């Protein structure tokens, strides 16, 4: 069409394109056609607009462009000439293994860190960001993984914290405060009362409030750091709906996530980082998941040999009978054999972690029996469970798994100190060090030494330290709660291999996971839970994503 030839030459700014094309549309009654410029404009996909219009020639003004960003910390170069371009109305995924430099780059974009070299260009103008305040004033906001809301204040109070509308110069104008907050929530189609206390909201709702707060600063660049980590599928759909709406308004979103399926669903382009360096930016539609992972890890993922079959004659190591507590746990029964990996699937809040914590004695139960090696183990406290040979690897490693301020050796010895002391309580340091060195080697924990504080290790290596702790205690039953959460793709495979080896050596493993591919790949048998009950049990052969989801959503009122 003639417009295609004509327009790119006039255009300098993206805004102009939209205005002019809408004008033309109206004038000539051109109906938007799929794959046409108009169609892309209507869904607000700027990356596609750029491509459709100019084939890459003409410049669409990027919302935010980071160029040649360098950053060093004492002893390490964290970022080496990194770049990123965010267009208006684009969801731009930023991926990379843990430690690839994603969050450092984002901290520079939000003014938390200062850059050593490079340029930050915002809407065509180079800007300096001396602090977080400056970034926010420009309209660059970050939604953090850990939410920064004050639980005892209301939604409205949180949104306008530090800039409350005033009456008489010093009184807070509550009416105006709630009105403004309400308007912002309404714009996002959120049915929330601004006077609700934040502590009464679910994590997902809190996240929405964070987004609303960011938008109330008139933010045009939103950075989201693993926003879906704690959300259920329904909540994720809600989040994506709001993201789509923001796209239409021309907001650019930088989206950090480890979940590949999500990236495919929501993002327009993907920028991959590795070891503090920029790898590539690709159109999401044009690459496969394998390809992205390859770019992230810089190598092909090795396939593991797979699970060894469970001997049907093998001893039942753990038996749980009628475990119950209120509505959270309703009459939980199951058995776990030696050498078996039993997957626990279900949606967030289905009660899987509660089962694990109850077996481990971390939380009290109303009733129920836990039988280990045929003997009734009366477990009231975690140390009872440990004595019975049960080890628990929490989903939240930093809070419940490792002692981050203590060194690798102390952590590996933490469950077994009774073995490392003489009668008057002195520690046998050399024995501790020997053991620690052994596990560092056999689990290939990457650490400069056993005296390294655990907080300086990556997520995957922290997880291995926890595994080392329980192996050192000779636990026969290991409960893994989300064993690969927050662990990057390369290290994930190592953890899987480790799990397979542990099972092959005769450990009985209960594995809770929210990632269905992980469940399907790593389990001999799958138990599905919903609302505190076991709703289904599947053998590995009959387990499919569809089957598991069927049981996972089998709510009691439907039965």
């Amino acid at each position, binding site marked *: 069409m003639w417009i295609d030839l004509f327009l790119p030459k006039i255009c300098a700014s993206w805004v102009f394109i939209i205005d002019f094309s809408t004008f033309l549309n109206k004038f000539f009654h051109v109906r938007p056609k799929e794959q046409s410029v108009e169609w892309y404009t209507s869904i607000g996909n700027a990356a596609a607009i750029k491509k459709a219009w100019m084939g890459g020639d003409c410049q669409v003004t990027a919302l935010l462009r980071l160029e040649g960003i360098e950053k060093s910390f004492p002893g390490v170069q964290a970022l080496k000439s990194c770049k990123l371009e965010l267009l208006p109305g684009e969801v731009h995924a930023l991926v990379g293994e843990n430690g690839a430099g994603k969050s450092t780059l984002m901290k520079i974009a939000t003014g938390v860190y200062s850059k050593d070299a490079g340029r930050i260009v915002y809407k065509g103008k180079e800007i300096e960001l001396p602090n977080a305040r400056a970034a926010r004033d420009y309209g660059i906001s970050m939604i953090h993984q850990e939410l920064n809301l004050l639980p005892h204040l209301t939604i409205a109070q949180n949104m306008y914290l530090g800039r409350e509308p005033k009456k008489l110069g010093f009184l807070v104008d509550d009416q105006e405060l709630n009105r403004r907050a309400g308007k912002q929530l309404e714009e996002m189609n959120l049915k929330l009362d601004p006077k609700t206390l934040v502590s009464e909201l679910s994590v997902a709702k809190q996240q929405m409030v964070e987004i609303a707060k960011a938008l109330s600063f008139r933010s045009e660049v939103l950075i989201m750091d693993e926003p879906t980590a704690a959300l259920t599928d329904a909540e994720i759909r809600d989040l994506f709906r709001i993201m789509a709406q923001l796209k239409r308004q021309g907001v650019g979103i930088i989206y950090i996530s480890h979940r590949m399926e999500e990236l495919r669903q929501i993002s327009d382009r993907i920028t991959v980082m590795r070891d503090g360096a920029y790898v590539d930016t690709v159109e999401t539609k044009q690459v496969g998941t394998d390809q992205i992972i390859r770019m992230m890890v810089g190598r092909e993922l090795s396939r593991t040999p797979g699970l060894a079959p469970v001997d049907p004659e093998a001893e039942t190591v753990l038996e749980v009978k009628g475990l119950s507590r209120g509505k959270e746990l309703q009459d939980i029964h199951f058995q776990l054999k030696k050498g078996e990996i039993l997957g626990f699937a279900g949606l967030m809040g289905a009660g899987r972690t509660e089962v694990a914590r109850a077996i*481990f004695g*971390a939380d009290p139960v109303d009733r129920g029996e836990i039988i280990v090696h045929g003997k009734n183990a009366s477990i009231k*406290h*975690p*140390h009872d*469970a*440990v*004595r019975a040979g049960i080890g*628990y690897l*929490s989903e939240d490693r930093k*809070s*419940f*798994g*490792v*002692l*981050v*301020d*203590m*060194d690798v*050796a*102390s952590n590996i010895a*933490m*469950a077994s*100190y*009774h073995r*490392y*002391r003489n009668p*008057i*309580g*002195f*520690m046998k*340091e*050399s*024995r501790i*060090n*020997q*053991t*620690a*060195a*052994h*596990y*560092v*080697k*056999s*689990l290939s924990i990457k650490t400069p*030494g*056993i*005296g390294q*504080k655990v907080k300086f290790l990556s997520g995957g290596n922290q997880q291995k330290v926890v595994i080392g*702790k329980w*192996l*050192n*205690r*000779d636990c026969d039953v290991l409960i893994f709660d989300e064993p690969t959460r927050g662990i990057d793709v390369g290290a994930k495979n190592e953890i899987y291999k480790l799990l397979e*080896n*542990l099972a092959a*050596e005769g450990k009985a493993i209960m594995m809770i996971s929210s990632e269905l591919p992980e469940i399907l790949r790593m389990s001999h048998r799958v138990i599905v839970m919903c609302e505190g009950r076991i709703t289904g049990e599947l053998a590995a052969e009959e387990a499919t994503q569809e089957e598991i989801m069927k049981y996972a959503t089998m709510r009691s009122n439907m039965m």
Partner: protein
Amino acid sequence: MKLQSAQTAGAKPQTRTTDNKGTARQKLLAFASLILLILAFSLLSSNFFRFDNLVGIMLSTAVIGVLALGSTFVIVTGGIDLSVGTVMTFSSVMAGVFITYWNGPIIAGVIGGILAGAVCGLASGLMIAKMKIPPFIATLAVMMVTKGLSLVISGTKPIYFTDKPAFNQITMNSVIFGIPNAVWIFLAASVIASFILTKTIVGRYNFALGSNEEAARLSGVNTVFWKVVIYVMTGMFSGLAGIMMASRLNSAQPALGSGYELEAIAAVVIGGTSLSGGTGSILGTVIGALIMSVLTNGLRILSVAQEWQTVIVGLVIILAVYMDILRRRKNRS
């Protein structure tokens, strides 16, 4: 890959730096301040750097120092013990009861006093670990109870040990180098405390509780039990301080003791132990206690009024803690 039987593995034990750089630097900083203070006072007054004055400083550090040793344990767990001062008084009154009222042997008084401290620690520990009462409140209550009990038991009057001159000799006699025994007891107690904190299981659990109690519990550590043990230990150090105090004054003074807990906490904090728990060292506490008494002694020699001495000690605490915070901030970025 064979994962078990660690003991048989031929892996070479790697060397391990148990002490972290941060604490070491803070200790160095505190130590440098101490030396600087001593130098400054020596230059300002010829009376300062003399044997009997230095012994005097050590002697005045001894009691508060032993209290601070005990406080270090609870502070490393992230807790606090406000009762150490009055528990000290309570122990000295109990020693008075055993020795003077009941005319028992001196050794019974010493053991009785330390046991009295242990019982108070047990009470605080059970309240904190079992009943989950916040340490601040629980030990505040124990502070008031022991303060009251000391007055009740003694009938608000001092109990004198004049019948048993040997009791006074425990601290005031000089066995070695003409330095009073109190100083040696303090040093011995420091060495023992340091061993407990760095070389024993209790010490390791102490740090574990301070850095993340829940993670320690989920590692199968019986956190309730060990917390009680730690508070009992603190109580025993307070008891020892009580005996030393009574022996030095040759009397149990029931009205004494309030305010000592804060001085003990100040010494611990100046020594680089963080009130949020997880870090700390006994050497730091000893240096912290010495800084406080060198300061008081030096100012007294320079005839600075008592009131101003207190003001200056207060300012020094601010300075010491602020420097610690600055250093931490630098470490982080």
